[in-house]
């Protein structure tokens, strides 16, 4: 399989914004979006298989009592 070397350097966001016809204001907004830290979403364990099994056990126990 041949490998192709891209001849141009990676364009800057400004260059690409210009190519795509994006306004400087929108580019600025996107920079702001990208620089604002976004917290990682922790996956809720309650949806996991183990949690479901455990919930079912608890539910059975409650019924017995």
């Amino acid at each position, binding site marked *: 399989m041949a*490998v*192709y*070397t*891209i001849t141009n350097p990676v*364009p*800057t966001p400004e260059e*690409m914004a210009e190519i795509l016809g994006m306004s400087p204001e929108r580019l600025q907004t996107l920079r702001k*979006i*990208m620089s604002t830290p976004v917290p990682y979403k922790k996956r809720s364990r309650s949806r996991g298989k183990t949690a479901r099994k455990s919930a079912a056990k608890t539910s059975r126990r409650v019924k017995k009592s």
Partner: protein
Amino acid sequence: MPRARRVESVFLNIPYDHAFEELYLAYIVGLTQLGFRVHAALAVPNQGRLATIIGLIEQSKFSVHDLSRVEVSRGVPRFNMPVELGLALYRSHVTKGKHRVFIFESKAHRAQRSTSDVNGIDPQIHRGTPKGLMSALRNIFRQPGDVTTVPQMLASYRAVKRRLPELRRNAGSQSLLAAAIFRDLTVLSLIQSQQLIAERT
């Protein structure tokens, strides 16, 4: 303002539907970070659609065709991707190979059965994952100095993905496939890429 440099273009032929959004994002981030301008048939009206697609292929030096979703959808097989592949293959033929065609699939050996006319082209197998896709892209496209690595591409993919809720809110659209979001994703990938370059130097 200085005139923008010439940037190599790639025509992206993928299924545009909700189920493919993760790989769609991975294609945009990966190709953009490698230095490409991505041409996609997004928001192209039905009238004159074929002519627009042919125009986009003509503007591109490369085309990437994802045949991983050519199966029956709601009782009808999806023929758009193979049709566009055919157009690109003809373009490659008339330009004597100057237009390069690449096929991507999620499963090994399936493209040889579904589209046996293209048995001369080895498909890149991405296994339906962004990581597999980034590796496949990097198998065929390299930058001078080979600077962008798969982990960096994946880090950018995740960084852009975390901003999707805000982009969707901005565009007033739940779908990533809106033309305005496509432009945002391209530029966001480059902003992230610039940060990576700054960290490298």
